[in-house]
């Protein structure tokens, strides 16, 4: 009875809004806000613990040897052909850059498929996701076209579909045929590491990175074998061997802690990694 009375009086007190009530409420709100951060922290620490290529199962990665790249752009053309892209839409971009000593070299840049991908954290509808095998994929039926991911990506790896999809890519059939469905106008698109090839290839018992049908088109198209693809969890895969052999590798804008999955072998004149401060 007394308990009941106490309750009713406290309820009555609560009904009178006062500054103290407001402070209480504000405190509760802050507490609630802090609680929402917990699952995020857990998830992030889990992602960090798995790290690049240390998770279970297949962990896809790519290595690009800058010394072998001749700037022919076959990777871009093959990519455009199988994704049915117009020339002004490029998932894979080859640019000419200079070293500190002024030598020119070619830098080809697919999506980095970062482990801490800024685009994945930016997307308001979870249309961009990180697959368990490390590929950052898009759900084109879910994307609302807000373009926050484009603003978030430090590598310019994302392109917006400004126009209606084209009939036939100018690079097709020379560099291949369309392999994936067209995306609607108004969504953001990106490199998929040719996940359709990987998934279909694994079902047929092929080895991505070794068998051409299961390997990204850009890797297959490269005439100098500058690109190596494979499972970073498998010590016998071409990429694991190449990474073990390489004396120095670097990843682009490593200082941002995005943990990219695309590694580069720097030009021979640069045996240091500019991001590691040695």
């Amino acid at each position: 009875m007394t308990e009941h009375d106490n309750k009713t009086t406290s309820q009555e007190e609560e009904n009178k809004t006062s500054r103290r009530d407001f402070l209480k409420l504000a405190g509760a709100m802050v507490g609630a806000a802090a609680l929402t951060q917990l699952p995020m922290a857990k998830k992030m620490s889990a992602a960090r613990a798995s790290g690049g290529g240390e998770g279970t199962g297949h962990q896809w990665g790519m290595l690009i040897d800058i010394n072998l790249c001749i700037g022919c752009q076959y990777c871009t053309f093959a990519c455009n052909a199988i994704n049915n892209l117009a020339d002004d839409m490029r998932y894979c971009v080859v640019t000419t850059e200079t070293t500190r000593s002024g030598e020119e070299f070619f830098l080809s840049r697919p999506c980095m498929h970062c482990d801490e991908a800024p685009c994945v954290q930016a997307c308001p509808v979870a249309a961009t996701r990180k697959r368990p095998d490390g590929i950052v994929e898009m759900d084109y039926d879910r994307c609302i076209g807000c373009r926050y991911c484009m603003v978030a990506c430090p590598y310019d790896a994302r392109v917006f579909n400004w126009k209606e999809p084209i009939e036939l890519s100018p690079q097709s059939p020379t560099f291949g045929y369309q392999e994936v469905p067209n995306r609607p106008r108004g969504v953001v698109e990106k490199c998929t590491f040719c996940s359709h090839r990987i998934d279909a290839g694994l079902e047929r018992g092929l080895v991505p990175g070794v068998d051409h049908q299961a390997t990204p088109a850009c890797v297959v198209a490269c005439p100098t074998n500058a690109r190596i693809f494979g499972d970073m969890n498998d010590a016998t895969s071409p990429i694991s061997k190449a990474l073990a052999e390489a004396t120095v590798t670097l990843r682009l804008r490593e200082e941002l802690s995005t943990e990219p999955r695309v590694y580069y072998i720097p030009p021979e004149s640069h045996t240091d990694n500019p991001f590691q401060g040695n």
Partner: protein
Amino acid sequence: MQTDIHIPRFRFGKKTVDIFPYWIGLLALGILFGLYGAFVVLRDGLDVTGLTNKVPWGLWVVMDLASISLGGSAFVFGVIVYLMKLKRFEIVAKLAVLLGFLGYTAAGMVIWFDLGQPLRFWHPMVFWQPHSLLWEITMCVILYLGVLSAEILPVVVEHSFFYEHPLHKRYPIIKKLVELAKKLAHWLHKLVPILAVVGLTLSLLHQASLGAYYSVLNGRGVWFNQSAPVQFVFSAMSGGIAFLFFTGVIMFRVMRPGLVKDEILYDVARLSGGITLLLTYLRLWDWAVTYYYSFDVNITLQTEALNAVAPYSSTFWIGQILLPIIAGAAMFSAKSIKSFRYLMVFSLFPMAATVLTRWNYNFAGLIAMPTYDPYTPIIRVSSYTPTWPEFAVATLVVSYWLMAFSFAARYLPFKGPDAAH
């Protein structure tokens, strides 16, 4: 019972003319032009805009942010009146709710056109991604728009139409709807303290996140400053309350003399001035931290490039620092200035600074971005010019705002018939 509303009239020779119909006609033309632009955008997609892959956000995003921030007085005055119980601001708070409602609906309209897939606007409500700041902002803005709608209904039903009108007798259905609206408004008015708390929480969350969603993008130099969330909250308060003062003088002192005491309007000006000064102080320190203690070579490079090439340096130093200091100090001493004409002019500067902050955040980070090459990164400067459909949609939204505000200014009494509450 009802407030006397003085309608401004213009004199042409001997005639005095009520320009209201012509003004509304002009705005209707603006809306028609805007609707045509909107149709073009929806038919041809965002390809008709000046946006590119390098500069994917433009005029519309800035307008969205600006109208959200200029509606920022609603949550402040909800707290002042219903939690701090400073009842003398109640009538001003009604105007703040109106400004909030108009600002947030305008923001919703403009951002809808900015989506590549406008028909999927509901996706954030269904497909949750709680790690995304943009998702949080979207949810907060939607919920807060609900709060504002609940807060504005009691203000609207104060109009005499809801008490006496020939239409009530002729069409009983209208009478029934009016009664329902009044009942709902009465019920909602009782909930106002709760709405004020919810509104405060949602506003602080999304106004701060609007700053944070730039500052988490650490690949872009100028955006990577730690105090952006705090700055955005204070900036929305400073600009939003300045806007409230500006419109308040028109609404109350010019059109409804005697409804709100001059002292109360001075207090509004002082509040805006004080927050403006505080914000400018914060902003100076933020600049110093970003500029001097930046540990990242790319960010230093970008900040230097922005100071050299972008309009960042002049707009920042003049528009965001110098003028707000002068205007903030003037508004803070409103009770010594005692001139509404000067104070209205001064109140334009915090408003301009609020919009400029959004403009600078949006463009400074977008047009000058560090390249990703490993050895000799440079700052690539892109360009962006809005095209006519972008201006058309902007005209549509601005015309909508002005038209709704004009009708409210002319017809809403801002004083209920039962002056008890």
